[in-house]
């Protein structure tokens, strides 16, 4: 049933009989490390924004289980068409802090050459497709890539993410419909964190759940506790296997909560009740998983200290590397519009170069969003 909610780890850290996916111990610990590192990365991002070292940041605090559990179900060769709130996947796929922070800075170490605001990553080396701001578009790309893989006979699986707000987009409808008709090997993960900036779920849709929307596209829809990494993993693993078998797409709704404000430009206190936050704080996905590990004797204070220390050291080192990187030169402004520069672009590049050679060029630019 699309409206039921699967939970595996209960409030005491115990799992329901027969539901634990049975991951190896070191993998469980690895997942924990990733969750902690993701949160620390996020805190650093916000801090750097507040310090004026980067122009914008957007946190995923509270949603670590939701996106890490999902992406962990993939094989390395599988592709990701992410939204903007899944930074843990970068760590899962071994992208260095240096590269991540370089993206925030938009410097010469940024794979996307400073063309986008912070957190709009592109990492081809990790099959992590360039993130765009317009909500939802990636859902249809994932369907198309899935169609292509089927035509080619590849067994690649494609996972794509959107938020609760994203379910209202044209591309939610389109991406799921095309994937449904063509049985494309896609896992659509809707991270339902209750809010689209200041708009609550009840103003987003009247449907009983996000998962039930799958029925409109003839695919299974599953609703899972998004703060329970084992539950998310289990559901997504089934969906990934199903897709790989050729049985088509799945819509997974992870029920979670956006613990932070929407972004560094937002102040959730203006529109959101503190009691809601407090209730969700008790369901923190990291604390929950920690309890589980503790139950299983895979966690203690020493381990915790080592996990945090390692993550912090990596962070510090990565930030340092990134901040030492050079800025991008002005000529890079004209690259990558097309594979080759057109005569017009060459002329414009030349024009700017001449102007700059006389000095003093450069408009005043303010802050985001103002």
């Amino acid at each position, binding site marked *: 049933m699309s409206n039921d909610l699967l939970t595996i780890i209960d409030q005491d850290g115990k799992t329901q009989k027969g539901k634990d996916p049975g991951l190896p111990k070191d993998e469980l610990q690895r997942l924990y490390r990733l969750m902690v590192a993701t949160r620390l990365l996020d805190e650093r991002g916000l801090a750097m924004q507040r310090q004026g070292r980067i*122009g*914008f940041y957007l946190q995923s605090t509270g949603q670590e289980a939701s996106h890490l559990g999902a992406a962990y179900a993939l094989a390395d060769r599988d592709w990701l068409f992410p939204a903007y709130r899944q930074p843990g996947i970068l760590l899962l796929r071994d992208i260095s802090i240096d590269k991540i922070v370089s993206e925030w*800075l*938009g*410097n010469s170490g940024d794979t996307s050459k*400073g*063309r*986008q*605001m912070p957190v*709009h990553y592109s990492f081809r080396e990790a099959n992590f497709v360039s993130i*765009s*701001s*317009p*909500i939802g578009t990636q859902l249809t790309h994932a369907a198309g890539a899935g169609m292509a893989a089927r035509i080619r006979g590849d067994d690649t699986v494609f996972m794509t993410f959107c938020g609760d*707000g*994203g379910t*209202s*987009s*044209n591309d939610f409808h389109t991406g799921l419909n095309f994937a449904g008709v063509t049985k494309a090997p896609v896992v659509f993960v809707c991270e339902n964190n209750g809010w*689209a*900036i*200041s*708009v609550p779920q009840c*103003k*987003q*849709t009247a449907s009983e759940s996000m998962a039930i929307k799958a029925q409109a596209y003839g695919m299974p829809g599953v609703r899972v506790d998004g703060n329970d990494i084992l539950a998310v993993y289990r559901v997504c693993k089934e969906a990934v296997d199903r897709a790989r078998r050729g049985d088509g797409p799945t819509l997974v709704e992870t029920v979670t909560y956006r613990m932070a404000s929407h972004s560094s*430009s*937002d102040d959730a206190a*203006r*529109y959101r009740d503190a009691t809601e936050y407090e209730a969700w704080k008790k369901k923190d996905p990291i604390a929950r998983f920690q309890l589980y590990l503790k139950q299983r004797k895979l966690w203690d204070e020493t381990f915790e200290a080592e996990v945090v220390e390692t993550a912090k050291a990596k962070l510090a080192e990565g930030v340092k590397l990134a901040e030492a990187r050079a*800025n*991008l030169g*002005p000529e*890079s*402004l*004209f690259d990558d*519009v097309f594979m080759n520069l*057109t005569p*017009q*672009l060459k002329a*414009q590049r030349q024009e*700017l170069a001449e*102007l*700059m050679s006389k000095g*003093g*060029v*450069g*408009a*005043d*630019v*303010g*802050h*985001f*969003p*103002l």
Partner: protein
Amino acid sequence: MTATETKTGTSKAGTKVMTLLEAITDALRHEMKQDDRVLVFGEDVGKKGGVFGATLGLQDEFGEQRCFDSPLSECGIIGTGIGMALYGMRPVAEIQFLDFIYPAFDQIVSEAAKMRYRSGGEYTCPMVIRSPYGGGIRGGHYHSQSSEAYFCHTPGLKVVIPSTPADAKGLLIASIRDEDPVMFLEPKALYRHAKGEVPLGEHVVPLGKARIARDGTDVTILCYGAMVPVCLAAAETAAQAGRSIEVIDLRTLVPLDEATVLESVKKTGRCVIVYEAPKTCGYGAELSAIVGERCIEYLEGPIVRVAGFDTPFPYTLEHLYMPDQKRVLAGIEKTFVW
């Protein structure tokens, strides 16, 4: 503030210094008060008051029926707005950033713009689509674009871009009262930076009339929105070098006040056109074409366009992408060289 502004419209209640953003809120409040058909809606416009704060306080004042949040769908914001207009309301829809208007492009271009024409005038679509546009806030690729040319090329749409707080209020009020769909594009770079006296209460600036923001005799600069202060600053600098520059703030791109434009260029014999959108096929191309076609015998130098480059909007190199004083000054000089 120039004298021209305070002369337009009528105001019985004095003036107040406002930012451009405050002037917009003031216009919305004024129209919501005097016409209960006026509805304000869009993403986050309710409790949050919009991401820039343009609708702050309106939900408290007028209730959730008159100012409400929509689902995350520009297609729906515009499409339902058209339905409301058809039913007799005066919808004022907010699109959070102009970069996000494209999911609604079909509704705007195929429906709002063509409703009156295709129904032989039986059905009309008096609605305002408000949206912040342009660069200047480090918004990168998707929070900075200036796509006014798409709308100017679409028969059936009026396109309005203010550059001062007083105009923002007066033009927005005129747009809300207009019987046709109006794209009301707000230069977000000026939201808090442009400050000036705004008439309190009733204040209407009619659509289709340009504003001479600065008188001059040597060169005409045609510009609008956030480029107006940049051009005024360049004109000031040029004045120190002995050049007398006339700066025309177009205010309304469709319908264009051709008379004011042509008169000025015929007077000065030189023309610089400044816009931040990509150069090719931007609104400035139309301006250049009009000037070239209609004033050629008066021109004493080449028409010069200073515009955004033909690239997508960058992030870290934004300061080089956006036309600045220096580029405008270089443009002015080019009009003196054949």
